[in-house]
């Protein structure tokens, strides 16, 4: 962890500007992935619509900055709050159902969010999106915007790490494993699922806000179900049962997308093939795959050690 952080700190000094921008994107996607994974990997709640909450965060910041001329920090801080509120409303409905129906409900709500953004021209600028968002000039100096993202993402991921390793996180995992059993250790399961949904939405909102700042513009497609699927792939790619999974998944996914799209116009085709390969052969994602290999190696070494000693 510490090593990675140190590496990330010196990135702008080592890499080109476009690479730094890429890593910036990876950081934001990593946060979105970790936020989603709280529900997905730790809570066992498959959501088809995380992009909806992500877009709410992005648009909250965008609208506050453009329409209301709000101070920068207010606009950024408001995003997760708005996202969490929306998440609470959406989540309240969604956790009433489980599995397929839960997933379809999240999809429907995300599409409603998309529709509202798309149609409410006066407020959101509709399908034109909001461009030229007034980001404070200081962020465009040097690599400041990278450090801005890095700082916020680092803090958020640290908080998520604490949450996942807390009694709440343990209870959430128990719900994932066996909801009926968890009810019978006196845990109001639905309430905890809603809490996970809201926390997830909170951090998705931050990710959306960060991307708004990074890109300087927002568009309705930030809420589209295809974007949601990107986030799901990021989690799966890295591995949903490991905390680092979405972080690794984000880096790999964005890297691969950029590399492939540079080399061919049919990048979706190759991305599709990679995803097929992933689903068929690496269900636990890259981190899960690595973890499995490491533990198998460790077992073999232990067994070897045992033989030596006896």
């Amino acid at each position, binding site marked *: 962890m510490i090593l990675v952080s140190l590496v990330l700190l010196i990135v702008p000094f080592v890499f080109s500007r476009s690479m730094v921008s890429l890593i910036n994107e990876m950081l934001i996607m990593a946060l979105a992935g970790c936020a989603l994974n709280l529900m997905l990997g730790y809570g066992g709640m498959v959501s088809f619509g995380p992009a909806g909450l992500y877009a709410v965060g992005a648009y909250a910041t965008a609208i506050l900055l453009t329409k209301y001329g709000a101070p920068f920090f207010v606009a950024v801080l408001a995003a997760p709050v708005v996202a969490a509120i929306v998440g609470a409303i959406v989540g309240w409905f969604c956790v009433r159902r489980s599995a397929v129906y839960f997933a379809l409900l999240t999809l429907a709500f995300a599409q409603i969010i998309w529709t509202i953004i798309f149609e409410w021209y006066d407020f959101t600028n509709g399908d034109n999106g909001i461009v030229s968002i007034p980001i404070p000039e200081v962020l465009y100096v040097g690599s400041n915007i990278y450090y801005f993202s890095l700082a916020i993402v680092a803090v958020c991921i640290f908080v998520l790490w604490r949450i996942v390793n807390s*009694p709440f996180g343990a*209870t959430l995992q128990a719900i994932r494993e066996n909801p009926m059993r968890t009810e019978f250790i006196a845990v*109001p399961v639905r309430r905890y699922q809603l809490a996970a949904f809201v926390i997830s939405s909170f951090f998705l909102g931050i990710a959306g806000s960060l991307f708004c700042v990074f890109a300087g513009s927002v568009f309705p497609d930030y809420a589209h179900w295809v974007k949601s699927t990107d986030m799901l792939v990021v989690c799966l790619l890295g591995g949903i049962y490991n905390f680092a999974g979405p972080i690794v998944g984000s880096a790999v996914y964005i890297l691969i997308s950029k590399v492939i799209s540079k080399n061919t116009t049919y990048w979706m085709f190759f991305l599709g093939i990679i995803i097929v390969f992933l689903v068929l052969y690496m269900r636990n994602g890259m981190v899960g795959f690595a973890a499995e290999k490491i533990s198998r190696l460790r077992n073999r070494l232990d067994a070897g050690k045992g033989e030596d000693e006896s």
Partner: protein
Amino acid sequence: MIFETKHLTKKFGGLTATSDVSLQIGEGELVSIIGPNGAGKTTLFNLLTGHIKPDEGKVYFQGKEITGLPPHTISRMGIGRSFQRLNIFPRLTTFENVQVAVFSAQRKSHQLFTSAKKMVREETETILESVGLLDKRDMKGGLLAHGDQKRLELGIALSVHPSLLLLDEPTQGMSPQETIETTALIQKLVKERGLTLIFVEHDMSVVFGISDNIRVLHQGKVIFSGKPEEVKRNEEVQRIYLGEENK
């Protein structure tokens, strides 16, 4: 009297799964519910534990009515339960399985920012020891042997300080040796903690071995209730079980 049901009835479509069941169970009793397959034992259990709501009738626990209350509330009031299938948390370690229950018992489940790793260690270890699983604490629950999983489940159920335990086929799938060990364990734990026990069983050696009282269920109705010797002698019960396989 700790537990009572009055005229509990549940129908699924045209099928009456539970029919006018009225039970009274005293504190500290060990009661078994037996009956051929399809007699409605699991449905009765689900009614008692709030997983399904009865069409008619009421359930009382320690004098308070609990009909229709959600399972987590009933659990908090002191009723513990085991399940026939998928009874533990497979991907969590044995230690974590019990720990998460202890969190709930101590009302710490909602804590978001404290580190769970070192919390409630003593209580968790005590419980693991009492069910004989302390040495397997770091194994993933799903990798435990079947008998150990049942014991783990017992441990989980005990963590939330129940005064009444409902066990659904606690020795299912066990070898004769395991059955004896588990039965002894259950007896010991029940006596130590002064629990009341209601359990469903197919294994007659267990039923006759430890029950104070037996209720015989057939087609959703309690057709006989009494002490083990009385049940053994009763002709109707024998008739119902003729042709039924006893484990």
